[in-house]
Every structure is written in structure tokens, then in C-alpha cells.
């Protein structure tokens, strides 16, 4: 089997992370667009957008440039601003640079997919996108991510390169789901009244929309929206491809593949096991008793520790 440079493994990991991050930003914004249609008159749009900026860890940067969080400015900032390291523009720029550096580890379909996406987004200028065009641009971002992932799954050899890109993809996705949950964790806490009010339902659907879980929720639960279900759905349900449980299992099985190929277990594997244990030996009652926020913070911390372990075990540089 061909040897892989540590640098290549790192770049493949980050390439998939960047593409997944761009897609997640698109989903967050999609929920934001929806929200702005129904909540023009109250404060919740600004509140949502601000918490979204916080979830992406770019709120400080945003408010150094803008006074208030309105949809148009936040969308510009999150989609196209080259100064924002987490904007879709920056994600595709970084993804494309990584891809270009690792051209030989990519199939031509993967390379052409990411290169085309970069060339297309680089054409769109800040300030040119109207609110009316926003849904199209958001749809484009999701398509671009699907195009890359589709090319990857359809063409890449199932070797270590595949495993490292899958780990990057699902570490990023788990981080995103955990952050969205944490940004709204208080609306999910069990209360004396089991029936949510209008505001609760609006917040819950927002979480579901931002994680593409809105319609699949019904297929899974055959029930009205309930905070307990929503939290369980996005944390523990293994059939939900954005849940923490699904992502962690996927990361673990990708590490299993590497272990099989290399014939050696590493520290990264131990970290992945620990994360899966957080999710497998528990239920929602236990999580709520312990504290949802605390649980999510711990998960995010362990997810970061996994990345560090990966970097030292496989000589990322």
C-alpha cells in the first residue's frame, strides 16, 4: 500500500472539514432566512443571527464591522467576506488550496468539483447579493458541498486517504451540531409544562431546520415537536446523519479502517472510543440530570482533543 505523507493526511482531513463547514453555514443561514420571513417585527431575528455568529465563533469580528445583526449583513459576512475565516468564501478558498496542494491524493472528479466551486464563488462579489438572491446562493453552497462529497464517495479509493477525509467531515459535523444545540440549549430544557408555547416551537423548528432535521423528525417520531425528542434526535439517535452519536460512530469506524490498514491502534482511537461511550451508555434523562449545556461543552472539548490526538498520532504538519 502506498505511503501517505502526514501533511497529506492533514490536508485531506481539513479539506473535508472546510467543505462541511461551508455547508453548515448554509444551513444556519437557511434557517435564518426562514426566520426573517416570520419574525420581522420582534427581536428574535437579531437574536438568532447573533447566536449563530457566536456558534461560529465570529461574533466579535462581525460586530467590529457592523452595528447590528440583520440578515443581509450577516449573510454577506458569513457567505462572502474574505476577512471572515469561517465564511463560505474562506472555506472554499482554503479547501481549494488544500486540494491543490494534495492534487495527487484526490481523484480528478474531486479536484474538478472543488476547483469549480471555488471559481464560481470567487465570481460573486460582496454587496452584490440581494436578499432575494440569498436562497439561490444558499442552495448553491449546499449543492457545491454535495458535489464534492458525491465525487469523493463515488471515486476515492477506500484507503487511509478516504478515512482521514471522513474523520474531517464528521468531526466538523459533530462540532457543528453540538454548537447549534448549545446555542439554544435553554429552550430544550424540560420544564413543568410539557407542551411548548409558540415561541418554543419556533425555536425548536429553528434548530431542526439548521440541522436539516425538520421533516425527518416526523418520520422518526410520528409526534409533534417536543424538546426532549429533539434533543434525543440530535444527540443519541444513530440513524440521524447529523447526530452526535452518528458522527462519533463514523469517526470511530474510520479510525478502525486506518488501524486495519496500518496494523496499529493509536491515541486517536482511544479518544474516539471515549466519545462513543459518552453517547452509547446513556439516555436523555441522564444527560438532562447532568446538565445539557455541560454535556455539550464536554463533547465539544473531547471532539477537539480527538483532532489533537489525530495530529500527533499521524504526524500532521
Amino acid at each position, binding site marked *: 500500500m502506498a505511503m501517505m505523507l502526514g501533511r497529506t493526511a492533514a490536508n485531506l482531513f481539513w479539506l473535508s472539514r472546510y467543505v462541511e463547514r461551508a455547508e453548515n453555514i448554509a444551513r444556519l443561514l437557511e434557517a435564518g432566512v426562514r426566520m426573517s420571513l416570520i419574525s420581522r417585527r420582534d427581536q428574535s431575528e437579531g437574536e438568532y443571527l447573533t447566536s449563530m455568529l457566536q456558534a461560529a465563533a465570529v461574533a466579535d469580528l462581525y460586530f467590529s464591522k457592523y452595528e447590528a445583526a440583520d440578515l443581509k449583513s450577516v449573510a454577506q459576512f458569513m457567505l462572502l467576506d474574505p476577512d471572515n475565516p469561517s465564511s463560505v468564501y474562506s472555506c472554499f478558498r482554503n479547501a481549494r488550496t488544500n486540494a491543490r496542494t494534495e492534487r495527487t491524493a484526490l481523484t480528478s472528479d474531486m479536484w474538478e468539483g472543488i*476547483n469549480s466551486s471555488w471559481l464560481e464563488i470567487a465570481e460573486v462579489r460582496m454587496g452584490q447579493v440581494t436578499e432575494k438572491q440569498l436562497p439561490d446562493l444558499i442552495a448553491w453552497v449546499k449543492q457545491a458541498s454535495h458535489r464534492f462529497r458525491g465525487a469523493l464517495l463515488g471515486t476515492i479509493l477506500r484507503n487511509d486517504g478516504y478515512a482521514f477525509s471522513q474523520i474531517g467531515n464528521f468531526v466538523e459535523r459533530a462540532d457543528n451540531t453540538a454548537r447549534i444545540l448549545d446555542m439554544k440549549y435553554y429552550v430544550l430544557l424540560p420544564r413543568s409544562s410539557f407542551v411548548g408555547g409558540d415561541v418554543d416551537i419556533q425555536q425548536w423548528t429553528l434548530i431542526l431546520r439548521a440541522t436539516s432535521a425538520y421533516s425527518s423528525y416526523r418520520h422518526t417520531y410520528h409526534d409533534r415537536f417536543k424538546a426532549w425528542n429533539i434533543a434525543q434526535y440530535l444527540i443519541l439517535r444513530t440513524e440521524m446523519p447529523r447526530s452526535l452519536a452518528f458522527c462519533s460512530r463514523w469517526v470511530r469506524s474510520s479510525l478502525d479502517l486506518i488501524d486495519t490498514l496500518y496494523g496499529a491502534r493509536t491515541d486517536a482511537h482511544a479518544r474516539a472510543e471515549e466519545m462513543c461511550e459518552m453517547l452509547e451508555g446513556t439516555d436523555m434523562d441522564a444527560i438532562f440530570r447532568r446538565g445539557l449545556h455541560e454535556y455539550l461543552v464536554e463533547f465539544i472539548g473531547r471532539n477537539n482533543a480527538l483532532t489533537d490526538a489525530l495530529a500527533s498520532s499521524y504526524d500532521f504538519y
Partner: protein
Amino acid sequence: MTNADPFNEMLNADGSVREPYRVLSDWIGTQPENDLRKMSTDAEGIFRRLGITFAVYGQEEADERLIPFDVIPRIISAAEWRRLSKGIEQRVRALNAFLHDIYHRQEIVRAGKIPQKLIVQNEAFCPQMIGVEPVRGVYSHIIGVDIVRVGPDQFYVLEDNLRTPSGVSYMLQNREAMMTLAPDLFQKMRVAPVDTYPEDLRRTLQSVAPQGRELAPNIIVLTPGIHNSAYFEHSFLADQMGVQLCEGRDIFVEEAKVHMRTTRGPQRVDVIYRRIDDDFLDPLTFRPDSMLGVPGLFDAYRAGNVTLVNAPGTGIADDKAVYTYVPEIIDFYLGERPILQNVPTYNCTNDSERAYVLEHLPELVVKEVHGSGGYGMMVGPTASKAMHKEFAEKIKTRPDNYIVQPTLALSACPTFTRAGIAPRHVDLRPYVLVGDEIRITPGGLTRVALKKGSLVVNSSQGGGTKDTWVLED
């Protein structure tokens, strides 16, 4: 000789079509201009999507640019190609023998065929290579020979690029593009394939692995990185061969052996197709300020633990001053007459030749001995009077720094221009591989001067490329 009446590769003087171009000429006749225009646009789309770009140094904005591609292929008949490839093979055999001799006993100098000064005082001479024994005695494994055509049977070698010739990825991608853009035309002709190149390259590299490492050598391509103008080509070739593309930071030397940093720890490297210039290869042996190279690499090479392709120091054999001696070199090592001619070249250190040159500068081409890429040269007929004066002074001050040649009437091929199909001047760079055997890919890269009347085909000076079709019998 001037460019007043260049050889037209498609049309005879009486307007009739030369045989190799018959099918192409008929095809062009049936193509509406709009279709050709659409082909050109499509070609640009293909190249952009594939990321086939090059960087122009000193132009930040145009960080990545496309080399213009002309959709009309250039045709070479089977008989023409047989002669060309024989001539090329003869040249690369002689030049590799020359390199071995120069870094060993220097018999050719002892025999008085080449002045000693020209070798030992030459900047391209690499004293560190003296006494080194490369595998199979091959110094220059990967060569691009620049050839121009001035008549039906007259070809000149303009330059032997024996260091790190580039452009082969364009040869391969141009063919892919043409097969997509004009499948109907392609089917009508029997065109020799070029897609054998990556496998030939891999076999060549494998055949020069160090002793004891021949069975399954670990081959890598060493690139300066993504900011290098030819980065696309480096990654393309590594990909096509299925070998690792590395930068200096990816490999290191320990106990005179080369290793790369992998996810499973250090792995031995056996053959390095390096696209880094000699000066930057190893800061311990060459330029100490090089950030691109690998400390200790040259020691590992001298110890016979790794093969560098091409070997350091090959520049001495494609130096423009040594170039004038290639006929003697062929005679000395092979005892043969050159099949391909050199361009007649004036030696400015010779008083009478210099006097002639200074008299006739407006008709001549002046090239710096160590220049390349179209930089540091003057094309007399298109240069200003001030330029003539400037170069006259330069030649008087440092006659050994310049070679002077007549302005060649480069052959012209039909090319799609804004004004429709029109003849434009071309050259040809076939690619040669030297290892266990000599492999020459049929055709090569045709570069075309897109400006009307221009003779400068370099991509850095506004030149484009064409696919080159060698017909099979």
C-alpha cells in the same frame, strides 16, 4: 534569412495542400467560424476546470493564468517524425556521453575539441559532480529538445533543455482537449498516442533506482510548492504516475539516506524526479539560503543511496556556448554525423564574426548565454534602434556572454485568430526519456506565436500552444 517568406506547413507556394494536412484542410473548410470560436471557448473552460494554469512571476494579480490554446492541431507526417526522432536520440546519447566525460576524464578537452575554459569557467559546470557515478551513466533523463522548422526538409535544433524542461503536461492535456473538442477530426486521422508518457516516465525513473533498490523503488516528484509556475505540471505528473508529490519539508536525510514523513513514520525514498533547480536542491552543498531544498540531499546522492533525476550539473551540456559544439560532441562520442542541424551561430569572441554581428544586428537574434524563457534576448527585426544600440554595447563589453544567430523564418501553421484562420509561427518541443532505453513520445509540445508576424513563442511572452499530431503510416 528573414521572416518575409516562412515555410507554410499546410500550403505549398501554389496554394495546394501538403499531403499530411489534407484531411485537416478539408475539415477546416467545413467548420463555420462560430463553431471554431465555440471550440476555443470550450477549450478554455476545460483548462480552467482542470486547473491547468501557470503563474507569471512579478504579476500578482494574474496569480494563475491559462496558456492560450489553439484548436487547430499541428500535423507531422510519419516520415518526418522518423527522421526527427532519430536525430533527437542521437543528440541525447551524445550529450549524456559528454556529461559523463566532462565530470570524469574530460577526454574531449584533452583532444582539443572544446576549449577547457569553456567548461571549467562555466557557471553551469558543477564541480561537486566530478567523479560521481550516476546509475546507468545517465545524467539527463528527462529532456525537451526545442526544434524549429524552416523548410520542407530543414529542421534546426534551437536548444537542448537538459535541466528540468517543462510543458509536457500541456502536451498531454492538449491531446485530451482535442479528443473532446474535435472527435470527428480525430477519428479521420491515425494519430500516434501520447498518453504513454506517464507510464514511460515511471519506467524510466524505476530503471535508474539505486543499486539494491531496483525491485520496488519509492519514487517521488519534488516540487518547490504551489506557488511555482509549473506546480500544476508537478502534481499532474505525480498523479499520472501514481507516486507521491513532495516538497522539501516532506523529506529529510538521515545517515545519507532520504526519507519522507508519512502517517506511519519515516519511509525511505529511492528516486527523486526533482523540479527544483540545482542551486536550491541542498542548502549544505549549494545555496545555503535555499528554503526549498533538503539538507544533506547531495551527500545521499553521492553515496549512491538516492537517484536525482536529472542529475545536478547537466546545465553544462545545454549551455548556449557549449551548444555550438554539439556537432563536434556527436562526432567525438558517436563517430556519427549529426542528423539534426544546429542553427548557424556566430561566436562573438571571434573578431571577424563579432564585426559581422555588430554590422548586422537589425537582422540577427541575440541571446544571453544563460538566459531562458525568452528573457534577455533581442530579436533584431522587431527591436527598436535603441535596443540595437544597447545590445551592441553589451556584446562589446562581454562578447562571451552572448550568442548570435540569424533570424530564422520559423515555419507557420494554420491557427484560429480573431480574423479567422491565419498562419502563425511555431516551434516544437519533443520530450525524451533516457533510462534503460531511450523513449521519445511522438509529437511534443507545439508552441505558437499568436501575434501576427511574431517569432517569440514563449508563454511568458504571449505565446500559446497547439496539439501536435504525428500521423501513423
